[in-house]
């Protein structure tokens, strides 16, 4: 098990060195956000703040608060809806296979790898036609639709592992298609729901391209607002860093609390799962 050629201390040194690289941005992020603006000069960028100054947080919060709420209004319904749709189609594609269902599945999967630029122009035209352009509702629709492939994939891979015998015995007991779904598949896939929900939550929260092209000013999710903090005024680095931290907080909390499920989702994204 142990690489004899590399001694343990050396391994730790390497790992700690890499850890420093990984933590460096977070260190700067945090200390800069805690400094008053006067203290943010080139020469003391790495120094700890002389006084803890929370004003950049209150300023960043007052600027980002509406957008943070927008993000929540967007992410929660979109996550739930795409998980529902994914569970439904994953169920059919794993347990009710029919001729051509594999091809159909592959066709659906392709949707998760396309560069979204390639559907953006028609999408915007469409949203305008139906009056959903520049609404959070429109953005929810977009994320639900483009979340279908990954959610379907995750649920399908999850359901494949549920033995057919369980379904058959339920059918013998008179359960129909819906009954099996409700009484067997859903209860057995709670952790699947968690994985998909966390994955979608993180992805939709962090998404930028749709957000920046489909919504404007007061409808914008937080990531666009964060990007705009570096807008036409002086870049107030402390406010921007505080804003970055605020915008990242929800996904970080989810990661810290439910990291295991997050990594599961990560792996599921590689098609084979």
């Amino acid at each position, binding site marked *: 098990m142990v690489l004899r050629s590399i001694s343990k201390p050396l391994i730790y040194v390497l790992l700690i060195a890499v850890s420093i690289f990984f933590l460096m941005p977070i260190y700067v992020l945090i200390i800069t956000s805690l400094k008053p603006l006067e203290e943010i000069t080139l020469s003391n960028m790495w120094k700890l703040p002389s006084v803890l100054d929370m004003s950049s947080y209150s300023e960043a919060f007052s600027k980002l608060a509406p957008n943070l709420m927008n993000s*929540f209004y967007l992410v929660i*319904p979109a996550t*739930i809806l795409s998980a529902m749709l994914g569970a439904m189609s994953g169920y059919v594609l794993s347990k009710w296979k029919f001729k051509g269902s594999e091809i159909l599945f592959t066709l659906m999967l392709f949707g998760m790898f396309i560069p979204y630029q390639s559907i953006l122009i028609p999408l915007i035209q469409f949203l*305008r036609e139906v009056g959903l352009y*520049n609404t959070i509702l429109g953005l929810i629709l977009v994320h639900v639709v483009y979340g279908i492939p990954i959610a379907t994939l995750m649920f399908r891979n999850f359901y494949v592992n549920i033995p057919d015998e369980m379904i058959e015995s339920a059918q013998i007991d008179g359960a129909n298609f819906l009954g099996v779904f409700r009484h067997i598949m859903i209860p057995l896939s709670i952790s699947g729901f968690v994985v998909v929900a966390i994955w979608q939550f993180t992805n939709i929260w962090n998404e930028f391209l749709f957000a920046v092209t489909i919504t*404007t000013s*007061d409808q914008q999710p937080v990531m666009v607002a964060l990007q705009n903090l570096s807008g*036409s*005024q002086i870049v107030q680095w402390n406010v921007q860093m505080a804003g970055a931290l605020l915008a990242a907080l929800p996904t970080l909390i989810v990661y810290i609390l439910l990291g295991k499920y997050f990594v599961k989702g990560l792996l599921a994204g590689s098609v084979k799962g």
Partner: protein
Amino acid sequence: MKKKLILTFLVVFSLILSACSSDTSSTGEKGDGKEKLDIFSWWTGAGEEDGLKALIALFEEKYPDIPIENAAVAGGAGTNAKAVLTSRMQGNDPPATFQVHGGSELNDSWVAADKMENLNDLYKEEDWNDKFPKELIDLVSKDGKIYSVPVNIHRSNVLWYNKKVFDENGLKAPTTFSEFFEVADALKAKGITPLALGDKEPWTATHLFETILLGVLGPVDYGKVWTGDIALDDAKVVEAAETFKKMLTYVNEDHSSRNWQDASQLVGNGEAAMNVMGDWAKGYFVNDLKLAVNEDFGYIATPETDGDFIVITDTFGLPKGLKNADDVKKFLGVLGSVEGQDVFNPLKGSIPARIDSDLSKYDQYGKDTIEEFKTANLAPSLAHGSAAPEGFVTKVNQAVNIFVTQGDVDQFIGSLKSAGSELK
């Protein structure tokens, strides 16, 4: 146990869902009865935002029952806002009124696409026709019809310089290109960056180039370039490109990581000596860097453009298809009044577009500029969309971005020429 936890988690989730779905539906509808006046702009910076807020407050004071909203879009010196505006206009969801630079940006886009209402009647009602300079009204008119109301004037061709640096080195602000290069060489010998540039957003370099073009060609020929009467590969244009190239050898090394504020900061703190920027930079020097006009920093027309004035005017018009057009006209009425202009401009750091405003409200720079504006030859700005259509400006920005690094004059002129097809 664990499953129960997760289940409650899900229940809470769906509760939040239902809560916010009702929430979104209520925000989706616009206030009952009265349509809101959403004033669309990209004024989110320090002084300009204050100016806009003061203007809105003035309107609220006069028309307390008309709901009004500041719908400013931040980022990219207006580029973000313009993209948003385009989407809204195309989606037949125009804002009540929106900020647009007079000239091509108004006339070749929204007016040409038949999206704007004619405002001749409003001008007559408010008796404005002799309150704005005629050249300025021309800039917001097409075929004799007026389409917007100018609120302010900015000057593009201003050279800002650090007074202390100039005094310490016994230098005089340059008025010609050869003086500029003499000064620049002297500064360089002292180890001071002669010219600050921050072209992270490429329009700043285009901005510098347009002032050189004006200096080399003079206002009349400068105007002819945009109408196609002077070719983009004319010897004079080539000369301007050569001068531009030479000037670029005097800029700070990290120009591409800075924006215009960062570049102005270099001048403010004496690391660099000069900076070519529109006079919104004055607001930045005074408000943000706490520097004093004519004490810490000085200003002069860019080389060989004395008496010429590259004008950038922010204007507001009336989009077609609005239900509350009368309310919008009331807002435009306030915007175009002496009172409106004098409440907005001192804060924004621009000068009023009207010729009869109250001089006492402006600082020394404002007073000087108001005087100059009365007699100067006006020229439209390329970098800010007044001189030529957006498509052309985009391509020029692209060509300038390449030129700043490569300095290949032939290639640059070639790109300009091929972009010229956008001028039509």
